[in-house]
């Protein structure tokens, strides 16, 4: 029995949709879980709110809490004007959170464990900030690279750092989410694999010894639940902070 902690990240085409140039566009397991996440979110947000109860039930409470949670995050970090981007940030948060949570279920696939997905989302945020910032503030948007109150002789250095950090934002934004999900799932797989390896190679003693990695796997799963939510939250709050730059470029 071979334990391959990387195998879970394999992209397996289920059927081919079409071709763009010489690239085959396939409906993959990743696509399946993306649409599953969208379906779960829709079910939660629309099905949960279907009864429109004055005193919410469980599902409606979850839907309303998600709404209030994201709304208060935006209001506290980007101000009332940030509510313009509420649907975007809500979609990002829910998509990442729900797909991460689905990914913890054994034998499923984690959408955000692929750098291309997190990078696409990060660049979506990056270009939203860039385009909206320039559209709204014109030339003043570039003030975000010139912090006020910095002595003139170190201003070039500060500006260089500010510009560099601005353009590195999508990298850190995407790699943070990707690496957390990837590392967490590899760790889970490795520890879970120890249980089977010990059992197979050492027999009864191994199965008893396997209790330790099993306990660790359980603990790691709990940790991954936290990480799944936390990374979605971090992604959303960073989006809010970046958007705040576009809305109020003056610092």
């Amino acid at each position, binding site marked *: 029995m071979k334990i391959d902690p990387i195998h879970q*990240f394999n992209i397996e085409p289920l059927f081919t949709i079409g071709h763009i140039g010489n690239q085959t566009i396939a409906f993959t397991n990743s696509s399946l879980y993306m649409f599953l996440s969208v379906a779960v979110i829709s079910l939660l*947000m*629309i099905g949960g709110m279907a009864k429109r109860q004055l005193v*919410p039930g469980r599902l409606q409470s979850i839907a*309303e809490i998600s709404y209030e949670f994201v709304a208060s995050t935006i209001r506290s970090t980007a101000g009332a004007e940030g509510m313009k981007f509420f649907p975007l940030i809500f*979609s990002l948060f829910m998509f990442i959170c729900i797909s991460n949570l689905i990914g913890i279920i054994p034998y499923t696939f984690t959408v955000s464990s692929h750098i291309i997905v997190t990078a696409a989302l990060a660049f979506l945020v990056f270009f939203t900030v860039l385009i909206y910032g320039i559209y709204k503030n014109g030339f003043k948007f570039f003030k975000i690279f010139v912090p006020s109150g910095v002595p003139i002789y170190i201003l070039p250095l500060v500006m260089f750092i500010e510009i560099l950090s601005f353009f590195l934002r999508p990298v850190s934004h995407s*790699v943070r989410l990707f690496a*957390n999900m*990837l590392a967490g799932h590899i760790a889970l797989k490795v520890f879970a694999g120890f249980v089977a390896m010990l059992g197979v190679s050492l027999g009864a003693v191994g199965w008893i010894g396997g209790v330790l990695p099993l306990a660790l796997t359980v603990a790691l799963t709990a940790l991954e639940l936290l990480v799944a939510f936390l990374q979605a939250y971090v992604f959303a709050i960073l989006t809010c902070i970046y958007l705040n730059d576009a809305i109020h470029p003056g610092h």
Partner: protein
Amino acid sequence: MAEKSHGTGAHTGADGGHGGGFPPFESSTFASQLVSLVIAFVALYVIVSRIALPRVESVIDARQNAIEGDLAAAQKLKDESDAALKAYETELASARSRAQAIGNETREKLNAAAEAERKTLEDQLATKLAAAEKQIAATREAAMSNVRGIAADAAGAIVQRLTGELPDKKTVSKAVDASLKG
């Protein structure tokens, strides 16, 4: 930490070589994933912005309105009960003062009547007293004149016994008068 994990991932990818490789860096799958992501995320965005969020917002607004309406109704009822209590209290105070006024008036009236009655009674008593005094005086006068007659008779009798002859009536009565005066 993120950078480190990224480095590890890259290393693993390099180790994987050309065949198989590290799935997250398998560039041949990128196009498929991007197309799916775009379709899924746009669908999610449309669902969220057109249906889900307005619906949640309307429910939360409706709840907020219901709460505010209920609070306003409660406040209105409370104001009404406060006003009623105030009206009751002023009514009670005015009734109390009216009762006091009526009491005072009655007391004064009764006092005045009693005073008048007392006065007439006193006047009556005074006239009766005066009449009685007059009568007593008349009676005494009569009694005194009788006494004079008796004294004169007695004096005449004494003088007759002593002298043996009846004295002049005029002289006796003069002497009695003088003695009565003295």
